């Protein structure tokens, strides 16, 4: 019997045992995250066909669900844990040679724990347990942002930590208020009883939850920390933060809105918020001269697009949002990984210093181009399929307002295209003063980058084998009644 | 009951003091007092486990960590 709890317990155990492996040999330490994430990847792929039939509900400690913590491995949870494990696996291979300075064994432990926390958030069915795993995710990201120890890193870490800690306090207040009214912490149990409580009384906990989780998700007015944190972290960590961490925040918000509270009035609010975030992010990215800051702002924009898609709240829209999560994780991960070694070679983060990269690091530049085109939404890459699905869902909504909104999404894609083409043009066509010696990235970087490029192209050409999974996930995410029945029986 | 009221007023006064003091060491001591009074309140609220945790972690260790950090940085707020 494959048990979803292993997805959390095994990486945790491995992370705890890294110092013990370190006593045997300091060289094994860095391979442990690779092993842990490979295990998670295999296990979650095995789980996919099972959860497509029916969600797996696991109770911990052997008690009945409202009285213990339970994990709900539905299609959404397992899909996201596949994404987390796949990105984690690739980036941990990349980290093998990328991370050389500082306390490297601590880096590898924190990296593994960050992904474990993320997996915990997407699988849990208990609101306080979600908070605990969320804290694991947040605290390890604060530490990893500050890991290089540079001025900018420490500064960004401080900013991120203060805002994040304020956000988690808001979440905890909301949990206290919810517990005071419902006497339970199980999400399904709360969802079952929520209609018996006057909506005024759940308004404040709802706002606090959205506000607290929105800080980690970097939704528009709460995104002040993101550009600094994502640009000053090591590139491997930026890839994980942009690719995974912020989406976990979006997932948590969506879980609260769709399952726990089930307030349909907020959907239009989410759509608007997502669109504002999208436009603000893309317009700010357009102005940047620093390549990592540009990518960070573009992440804000993409988060906006995901929130927009989820806010459409039809099965198609939610499926499009989940597809966009996958597509952005792969593309932005690829971009950060590729940029990581470009910065390493040139020693500068300015976009202008990338001139001549097309000859100096041909493969990495090609990979960057693929990632950029996919993010903009050009066929035949994955970004095209996901954006197409989101816009199709918005059109299918039928009302005129959604047509206008979809047009705005396309407008944002044009801005995105403008700044990415500028970078690609500099990489390939601008003359560089430096000697053009070929200095390709090491194989531990080439392999994950190549796998990402392959995935982006293959899924972009044949999206159909994912569509079934995504549609099932989309309808499952919106179906509260089935969730409650699945957990409480 | 009177005791509880007095303690809570004292606690709030200590918290305000922690906000006002320019000398960070005094502010840290004030926040330690907040934690200590909170520990006593936890005990009154029939939570002895939490009271022990708050007294040993919240009041003692956190204060020690703050004082060490103050020693490594500057003591006065600019």
């Amino acid at each position, binding site marked *: 019997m494959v048990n979803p709890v292993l997805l959390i317990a095994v990486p945790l155990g491995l992370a705890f045992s890294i110092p013990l492996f370190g006593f045997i040999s300091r060289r094994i330490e860095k391979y442990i995250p690779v092993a842990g994430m490979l295990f998670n990847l295999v296990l979650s792929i095995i789980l996919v066909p099972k959860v497509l039939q029916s969600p797996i509900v696991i109770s911990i400690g052997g008690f009945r669900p409202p009285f213990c913590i339970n994990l709900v491995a539905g299609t959404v949870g397992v899909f996201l844990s596949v994404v987390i494990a796949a990105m984690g696996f690739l980036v941990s291979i990349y980290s093998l040679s990328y991370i050389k300075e*500082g306390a490297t064994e601590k880096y590898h432990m924190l990296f593994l724990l960050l992904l474990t926390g993320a997996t915990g958030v997407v699988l849990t069915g208990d609101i306080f347990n979600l908070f605990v795993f969320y*804290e694991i995710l947040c605290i390890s990201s604060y530490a990893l942002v500050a890991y290089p120890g540079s001025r900018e890193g420490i500064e960004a870490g401080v900013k991120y930590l203060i805002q994040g800690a304020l956000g988690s306090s808001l979440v905890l207040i909301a949990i206290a208020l919810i517990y005071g009214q419902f006497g339970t912490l199980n999400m399904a149990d709360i969802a079952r009883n929520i209609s018996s409580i006057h909506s005024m009384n759940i308004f404040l906990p709802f706002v606090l939850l959205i506000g607290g989780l929105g800080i980690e998700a970097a939704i528009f007015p709460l995104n002040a920390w993101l550009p600094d944190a994502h640009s000053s972290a090591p590139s491997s960590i930026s890839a994980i933060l942009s690719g995974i961490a912020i989406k976990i925040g979006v997932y948590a918000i969506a879980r609260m809105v769709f399952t726990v509270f089930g307030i349909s009035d907020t959907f239009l609010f989410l759509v608007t918020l997502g669109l504002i975030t999208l436009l603000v992010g893309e317009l700010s990215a357009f102005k940047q001269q620093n390549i990592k800051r540009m990518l960070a702002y573009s992440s804000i924009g993409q988060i906006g697009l995901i929130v927009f898609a989820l806010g459409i709240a039809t099965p198609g829209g939610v499926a499009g949002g989940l597809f966009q999560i996958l597509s952005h994780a792969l593309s932005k991960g690829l971009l950060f990984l590729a940029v990581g070694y470009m910065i390493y070679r040139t020693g500068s983060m300015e976009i202008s210093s990338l001139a001549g990269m097309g000859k100096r690091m041909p493969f990495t530049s090609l990979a960057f181009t693929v990632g950029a085109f996919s993010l903009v939404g050009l066929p035949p890459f994955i970004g095209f399929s996901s954006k197409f699905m989101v816009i199709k869902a918005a059109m299918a909504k039928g009302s005129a307002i959604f047509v206008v909104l979809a047009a705005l999404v396309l407008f944002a894609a044009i801005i995105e295209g403008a700044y990415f083409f500028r970078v690609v043009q500099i990489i390939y066509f601008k003359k560089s003063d430096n000697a053009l010696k070929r200095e390709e990235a090491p194989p531990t970087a080439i392999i994950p980058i190549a796998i990402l490029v392959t995935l982006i192209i293959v899924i972009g050409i044949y999206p159909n084998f994912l569509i079934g999974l995504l549609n099932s996930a989309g309808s499952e995410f919106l179906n509260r009644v089935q969730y409650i029945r699945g957990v409480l029986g | 009951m009177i005791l509880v009221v007095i303690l809570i007023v004292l606690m709030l006064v200590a918290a305000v003091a922690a906000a006002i003091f320019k000398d960070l060491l005094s502010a840290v001591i004030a926040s330690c007092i907040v934690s200590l009074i909170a520990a006593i309140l936890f005990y009154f609220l029939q939570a002895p*486990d939490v009271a022990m945790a708050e007294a040993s972690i919240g009041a003692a260790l956190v204060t020690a960590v703050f004082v060490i950090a103050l*020693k*490594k940085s500057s003591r006065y707020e600019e």
Partner: protein
Amino acid sequence: MRKFLAIVLLLILAVGIAQSIGKIPFGTSKTKVGRYYIDNGVEETGATNIVTSVVVNYRGFDTLGEVTVLFVAALGLGAVLALKKKKQENDELERASLVLTSGCKFLFPFILLFGSYIFIHGHLTPGGGFQGGAVIASAFLLIYLGCRERKINENGAKAIESLSGLLFVVIGLIGLAVGGYFLLNYLPKGIPNTLFSAGIIPIIYIAIGFKVGAELTGIIDNLMEAED
């Protein structure tokens, strides 16, 4: 300007909170999960301290996460402060007075004993792994303050941290293998109110005690050793 904005924001929040807290009366029972734990806790877990049975058994997964949070923080603190450790300059340090040194040395074993008493009896009396671990860490803090030439063995602390964390996970996984549930309480529950009761609860709490103690000590150690 900034303060004014902050006050306005907080006033809005205060009104909102006052509104919603008015709906939660103070001092009345509104629990339903908690009621179940009080009624069935002793029978189902064998621990007479219901808080312990909730922390370690009913919500044991939270506790695993919480131990991990502390682990993450200790790691992060180590990584942030790692760059250069202070060199051996113990000779320059002003020695503490003899009274203080011998007083600390005298108290140290008693505090350790007290700490272990707290976490060994966590399922019977108030207290448990976190409180006991914190007491143990404060014993080491005392040694740091009183006898400055003493240093803890970092590798030992690391090994204790890892082994106790691993023990927690392994106990959970054995439960999964034996009964199909992670963290299942598969050991005999024993007679309530005796030391050897409550199945896996005391074992886990002892592991937590060691882990929390080692981690908090490591945090203090790292902070003390950091460069000024």
